[in-house]
């Protein structure tokens, strides 16, 4: 069990607890969110049951200049060259095994059919280098908007 807060439609607020250190939020006795003693947070929100959530630990929306429109856990974006950027994290990742996603919106008529994590430098705990360009010749291309997110 756990420290349980149950919002019942018949009894109102129902509290119960033990000494496990876990926490559960319930609606009519069904767990909708919880925290486990290992720190994992779970929630339902349409998933079907309360399942462990894996968070987006860094994200940014920027253009090629590279001006940042909005971001989270990103200290800056470095423009290394045409279509070549590095996203720098404010707080470091626990390791480099996060899943980084990168995509762009190209300018009208421009072909940007490569959007990947750079082969020049692999993801590190503190930054991730990304590249966008044209597959026919490998040349970098500057997109209109760049979208980056890292999950862990």
């Amino acid at each position, binding site marked *: 069990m756990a420290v349980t807060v149950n919002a019942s439609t018949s009894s109102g607020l129902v509290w119960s607890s033990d000494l496990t250190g876990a926490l559960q939020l319930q609606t009519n006795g069904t767990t909708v969110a919880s925290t486990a003693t290992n720190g994992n947070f779970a929630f339902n929100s349409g998933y079907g049951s309360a399942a462990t959530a894996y968070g987006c630990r860094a994200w940014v929306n920027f253009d090629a200049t590279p001006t940042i429109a909005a971001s989270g856990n990103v*200290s*800056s*974006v470095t423009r290394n060259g045409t279509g070549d950027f590095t996203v720098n994290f*404010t707080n470091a990742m626990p390791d480099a095994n996060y899943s980084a996603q990168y995509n762009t919106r190209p300018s009208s008529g421009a072909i940007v059919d490569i959007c990947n994590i750079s082969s020049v430098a692999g993801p590190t705990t503190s930054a991730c280098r990304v590249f966008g360009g044209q597959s026919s010749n490998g040349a970098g291309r*500057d997109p209109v908007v760049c979208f980056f997110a890292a999950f862990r």
Partner: protein
Amino acid sequence: MSQVIIYPNDEGWLSVISPAFNCGLSVEEIARKDVPAGKPYHIIDSSLLPTENTFFNAWEADFSNPDGHGIGHEAWFRGQ
């Protein structure tokens, strides 16, 4: 206009760093952290950058009297 950080990269041209001003760090702190260790940098107004990016790889700047030198990510996070 906003401030940006420029430094000479290993490829032989300039890198431009745009700070995220919601990250809680000052532009000076971001420069020390995100400029690679030992690289000189300038903090300039972004309006001073060329507006045309086509010849980005030909941009040059004088770093004989820099605003500072980067310490890099590793040293920055080690010091946190």
